[in-house]
């Protein structure tokens, strides 16, 4: 499998690896995928009082493209409002990383992870 330069870069130097406390204020956690399918992504956002995402962290079990997709979205969501973050589409992720067709599901999973994290944040806000 030939990987793009950008996938390799994110794989070799993943951005924002780590975790926030799930119960911390302003933190939304999204976990998507399943071990049996070969990918599990956990994306966390930390949202300020103004509704802007101040920080993001991820952990991913999966192939290089899955790791790169989640690493990329942690960079992209930072500085966006939660509503803006929801506008990130898998096609943008796939295009940025030049994912081959068999790896498109990685970008879909990353989009789902953002949605799940935002939903969790909103739920906690009541």
């Amino acid at each position: 499998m030939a990987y793009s330069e950008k996938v390799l870069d994110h794989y070799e130097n993943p951005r924002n690896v780590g975790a926030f406390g799930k119960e911390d204020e302003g933190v939304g956690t999204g976990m998507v995928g399943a071990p049996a399918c070969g990918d599990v992504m956990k994306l966390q956002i930390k949202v300020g009082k103004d509704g802007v995402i101040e920080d993001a962290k991820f952990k991913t079990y999966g192939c290089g493209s899955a790791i790169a997709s989640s690493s990329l979205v942690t960079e992209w969501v930072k500085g966006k409002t939660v509503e803006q973050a929801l506008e990130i589409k898998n096609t943008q992720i796939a295009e940025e990383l030049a994912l081959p067709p068999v790896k498109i599901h990685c970008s879909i999973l990353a989009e789902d992870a953002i949605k799940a994290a935002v939903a969790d944040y909103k739920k906690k806000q009541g």
Partner: protein
Amino acid sequence: MLKFPIYLDYSATTPVDPRVAQAMIPWLTEHFGNPASRSHAYGWEAEKAVEDAREQVARLVNADAKEIVWTSGATESNNLAIKGAAQFYKGKGKHLITLKTEHKAVLDTFRELERQGFEATYLDVQENGLVDLSALKDAIRPDTILVSVMFVNNEIGVIQPIAEIGEICREKGIVFHVDAAQATGKVDIDLSKLKVDLMSFSAHKTYGPKGIGALYVRRKPRARLEAQMHGGGHERGLRSGTLATHQIVGMGEAFRIAREEMKTENERVRALRDRLMKGLQDIDATYINGDVEHRVPHNLNISFAYVEGESLIMAIKDVAVSSGSACTSASLEPSYVLRALGRNDELAHSSIRFTIGRFTTEEEVDYTIDLLHKKIGKLRELSPLWEMVQDGVDLDSVQWAAH
């Protein structure tokens, strides 16, 4: 100086030993005669070279040279043995037995025979990868004509109890075929004692060239086959086609070296394998696939939990190894051999087969140990599954959203 990638995939193929390559060359350029040419010296000398090589192959397995038939490799030998015996003995019965963990060259040949009207039983193996002899006995029917069991498994390196299976088959008058592609030079094979009727060999797993192999066909009691390749009647009619003298000479030389050096070589290789095993078992949540005792000295098949296979292969591209995942991932073929071991308790793991060989050094093994420690650590740091396990979450209890 280390050369990258470090080759630890000797069960896939081996480099041709330089002594073997040397022995082959004159038979390409100078002594190019057709061994079947009876009317001149070019043919006579080629024929002698072929017969000398046949003797070397026979000696490694304590057989008679007349019992060795040249083929293009173990796949062809397996096809010739299984189809040839099934078709010859079909008047006696139509039932065949093999293992689920056999090589595709055996399994797909069985499938083809099923399409032709034969019936096949594919036996499960035990958790250690070895055949259950009582299950084998129970599977035998009055119309069973052939049993095929590999000597050494290509993925997990376990050695099947060939002597015991031979006794069972001989007593019932069932033809017993053994795929020994992975066994030559690794385990002692004595066909004067083993009750094996047909045995497949390959040159390129034992430091010989690719494209050449052999089939042992027992003379006493005589195993009968129907030829699968028709033509000039070479190899006593069992396998027509002009003999590839240089390839045959290479296989003979490779098997001579194996016979003379296997004892010391296996000791050295085993020490390296054990060093690798010890070095990798230090890593948390790892386990060895296949029986450790009944195993060839050069094979280590090890699983790392909570690490995804493709990312692991990406991470360790400095070593050339084979991988298999017991679960399905997007691009890694799941290993039917590992699945047959019944290890479904681990939802998420990846497995690596390391196979060490004649040219592996201690430095290479130490580099590999160090690399695996670093990369497994890095991938687990990235893994939400590992985090959950560290927090005491039982992954089986989690409701995963399938996608």
